[in-house]
């Protein structure tokens, strides 16, 4: 996927004012990872949702206000956890680098 745009997943058709968005991209050595799974865990660590990354390594969640954890699983890589803060009306952009 050479030339894929980093970050900045298109927000066309998304009502940003009413959603607490968390989105981003999974990278390995700077290259997009299109076969990763990103899970969203709530503030107690409980699973809330999971999505496969797109061919360009992108993912998106419609969360609620507050603190969340992104856990990324990919073939031949250890899981990576990242904390993220979400708020209605904003987009939290996260880049996840896996080993």
């Amino acid at each position, binding site marked *: 996927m050479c030339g894929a745009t980093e970050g900045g997943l298109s927000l066309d058709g998304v009502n940003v004012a009413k959603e607490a968005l968390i989105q981003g991209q999974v990278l390995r050595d700077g290259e997009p990872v299109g076969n990763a799974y990103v899970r969203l865990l709530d503030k107690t660590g409980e699973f809330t949702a999971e999505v496969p990354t797109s061919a360009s390594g992108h993912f998106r969640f419609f969360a609620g206000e507050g603190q969340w954890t992104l856990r990324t699983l990919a*073939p031949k890589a250890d899981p990576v956890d990242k904390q993220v803060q979400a708020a209605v009306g904003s987009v939290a952009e996260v880049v996840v680098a896996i080993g």
Partner: protein
Amino acid sequence: MSRENSLVTTQWVEDNLDTPGIVIVEVDEDTTAYDKGHIKGAIKLDWSTELQDQVRRDFVNKQQFEQLLSSKGIANDDTVVLYGGNNNWFAAYAYWYFTLYGHADVKLMDGGRKKWELDSRELVDEVPTRPATSYTAQEQDRSIRAFRDDAIAAIGVQNLIDVRSPDEYAGRLLAPAHLPQEQSQRAGHVPTSLNVPWSKNCNDDGTFKSDDDLKALYAEAGIDDSKDTIALCRIGERSSLTWFVLKELLGHANVKNYDGSWTEYGSLVGVPIALGDEPGSADA
């Protein structure tokens, strides 16, 4: 039912890719996942266009289901092995659906598509062609399907297991967090329903937890083994997975899936709703 005859491993599937009489079927929430590569020989079922009536909110009827399976080349005596993404969320729904229409031999691939991918097993682009069959379905088995009146009658009487995430149960979210949250229905849960998120049935790699761990999970949640159980979620898919665990893996006798689930219940006029993290009371 038991784990041995309702579940197969990814290795078993790889060993049986060319075995006659076994049909591997991908059913994914993301209906384009199959097109990005799938298990060799697997066919695709689209839950949104092929398993739902396209006008009213209901399943395809018996005749439509027969036509669908005939056209897909699935025969009555085939072993159907289902797999999909998101811990087999929609594959479990298809499992329940095949059971509803009386298919004799249906199994889930433990861990689903994610486990297959994390194992670095092969995915192919080639779409197989299967000769059409003449499939005969049974009448719907209503003993595994709950309707809204069953859910209301179960308040304070039966086990109601709400399998949505804690934030959906409490009313802080209206949909799983990978979907937009704007919805028409009210937030919350059916009073007295216990919250056992569907994801607790599974390990991180998507495989089911052991029977002992699953028994402990439901005992701790307070399920009463002497009572019948109704599982529900938002649209009846995640609760199919919990139905599978309670009915097929743990062998509970009377377990129904309420496919109307919260998108129906939360839109009903006048029914009781509880908010917050506690089950609430039957008098609410």
